[in-house]
């Protein structure tokens, strides 16, 4: 076990899989010689060579297309989008091709491509370095969508994703790339290493965290809080600081969703708050709310609340006002509990 940041855990996942399987390669803008603008591919170029830590032209659509072709030809490309905000030029290849290939060819062809994309705000990146487009991908049949909240899960989930024969879009919350995030609505507060964080202790070797399984992080009876990525930490802090007896579920995989774990919890608590940083309207929270109200209707004692980013582009100056912070989560939990 080593104390790792999420960046290091991702590096380690890539290293482990590349070492074990010569068909695994990483590719993307600045991922080769330089090791990636967020350093997630550091060291791989020296260790595995230019063709396995493959620098590419700045053409997201071309990168994914090439990865699809490579996947069809027996490789397992792990593509890095420099920012999730720049995944849109590749979306036709992702939706129309990568996600559909196995089905449309009657199972003849498929491409085991993983697309890693740093998402969310947290670096004063304004509207083009802060987006959270995960919801869109959950609407696309044929894709798996994952977002880890800590180094342990990041490595275990990424290894699962690379070994999976289906395409996976793997979102990495930048805000917690380099250390834990305790949900303070201040850019620089909180400790800045994972050393004392249980999920920051990461095995050096191979292990997996299964896709499609949520993690119940806190047990509680008063209200269920569903979150993923950074928001797990914010929700955790909100629960801690509000003293509410909440059950906190880290979804880890958005699709396929661990409906079982969610339903079990909400049937028990009768109340639910759904949290994400993405914009509200038609965000993934909407799917969660719908699924829960269908499955748990007779158990619900309060409307399910959504605490999300506002329906505006991500603003440069107001990161922390845009950000769904503890106060909003606490207020939502409170409203849920007070209902009857």
């Amino acid at each position, binding site marked *: 076990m080593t104390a790792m940041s999420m960046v290091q855990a991702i590096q380690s996942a890539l290293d482990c899989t590349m070492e074990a399987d010569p068909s695994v*390669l990483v590719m993307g803008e600045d991922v080769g010689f330089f090791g990636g603008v967020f350093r997630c591919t550091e060291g791989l170029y020296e260790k595995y060579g230019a*063709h396995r830590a493959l620098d*590419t*032209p700045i*053409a997201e*659509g*071309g990168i994914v*297309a*090439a*990865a*699809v*072709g*490579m*996947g*069809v*030809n*027996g*490789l397992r490309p792990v593509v890095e989008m420099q920012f999730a905000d720049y995944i849109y*030029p590749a979306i*036709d*290849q992702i939706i*129309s*091709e990568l996600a*559909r*290939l*196995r*089905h*449309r*060819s*009657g*199972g*003849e*062809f*498929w491409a085991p491509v993983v697309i890693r994309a740093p998402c969310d705000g947290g670096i004063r990146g304004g509207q083009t370095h802060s987006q959270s487009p995960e919801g869109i991908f959950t609407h696309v*049949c*044929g894709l*798996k969508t994952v977002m880890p909240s800590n180094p342990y899960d990041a490595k275990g989930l990424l290894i699962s994703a690379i070994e*999976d*024969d*289906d395409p996976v879009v793997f979102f990495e919350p930048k805000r917690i790339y380099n250390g834990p995030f305790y949900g303070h609505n201040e850019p620089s507060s909180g400790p800045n290493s994972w050393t004392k964080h249980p999920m920051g202790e990461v095995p050096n070797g191979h292990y997996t965290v299964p896709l*499609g399984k949520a993690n119940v992080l806190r047990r509680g009876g008063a209200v269920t809080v569903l979150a993923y990525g950074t928001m797990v930490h914010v929700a955790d802090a909100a629960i801690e600081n509000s003293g509410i007896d909440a059950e906190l579920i880290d979804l880890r995989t958005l*699709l*396929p*969703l661990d*409906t*079982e774990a969610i339903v079990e919890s909400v049937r028990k608590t009768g109340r639910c708050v759904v949290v994400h940083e993405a914009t509200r309207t038609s965000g993934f929270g909407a799917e969660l709310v719908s699924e829960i109200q269908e499955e748990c209707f007779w158990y619900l004692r309060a409307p399910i609340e959504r605490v999300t980013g506002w329906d505006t582009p991500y603003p440069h100056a107001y990161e922390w006002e845009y950000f769904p912070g503890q106060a909003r989560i606490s207020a939502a939990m409170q409203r849920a509990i007070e209902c009857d």
Partner: protein
Amino acid sequence: MKTSSPSRLFVPVASSRPGEVPDFSQLHIPEAKASPAKPEGVITAEETYDLALGLVRVLDDGGCAAGDWLPDLSVERLIEGLRHMMHVRAYDERMFRMQRQGQLSFYVKCTGEEAVAVAQAMALNPGDMLFPSYRQQGLLFVRGRSVVDMMCHCISNARDNLKGRQMPVFYSWKEGNFFSISGNLATQYSQAAGWAMASAYKGEEHIASAWVGDGSTAEADVHYAMLFAATYKAPVLLNVVNNQWAISTPQSFASTGTTFAARGIGYHIPSVRVDGNDFLAVYAVTEWAAERARQGHGPTFIEHFTYRAEGHSTSDNPAGYRAEDEARLWPLGDPIARLKQHLITLGAWDLDRHAALEAELADSVTRDWKEAIGYGSLESGPHWPVESMFEDVFKEMPPHLLKQRKQLESGS
């Protein structure tokens, strides 16, 4: 809008529209003997300038073959090529008629362009991977796919290898290294570059070959394919089938007024423009390009200069947008007629044999159709079980799809 100045926006026009006399005066078709020379050894993109702006031809208008592009093909191979092209045409005729009778939802002919797919498939190795558009059915004939299977796919019956999921003509045939055709134009062109990169990555000798139409060159994926193929010297043949039309839109909305092959040079890819109705020339250029790729010299960009002799598809009526006579007057003729003439000139073929072969192939596709329809029709089945639509979305069916499948079965 405040101004009322006359518009200065230039908009390309078609060379002919309904009611007009077809006008080929812009074409500048060089004679076969004026073909640019076949390059020897390693070549740079710049050195293919004449090849990209000229036109490689082997067969002249009288059916004689000459020049340094003349491929080394036996008479038997030539007859084989002729037979494949005629088979494709017979198949197209049959399927088109079946569509008109309501047996298919849709069909696309490749009439007039048969030489491209047939000659290219014959010049490639079976292990080479094909990423076609919807107008290269000829590839399947050369690679020996069962025509009955192709038909079963087109009518989505119980023997359809694509399980009723795809429209007609969007074939997939893994066994024959024929990639699943997408309805989205050009998306596979760039994938072919990736496939070829993987071949090089693995140190293998297989190459890839991809096709798009003239209109489709406008899509981003064609740019990506050229950029990636050139950057990584990927062993891939990037073919543009310039059949002059994209549904109703003339090639001038995609060619920017020069040849398509010229665009390849801008990406530093050796590029060739070939008479796409000349079986021998297409074969020769393909053989040359494949050899380059296999030896590690990277991609070749090939423009096949041909003509879409029929409508875009069964959903289309070309009388609405092009001069009636254009197809008939196309100055580069018909690929089957030209190879036939060549074989006759060689003394290896005659009109009787030709007529006999035509009849034999028509019979053959009729028999195949009867067999295919015996396995089920689009409207009446049998099809694959309806629930099979939930399979292959993922490798293993996740819970939400299991649940939906149950709902479908229970009708709720």
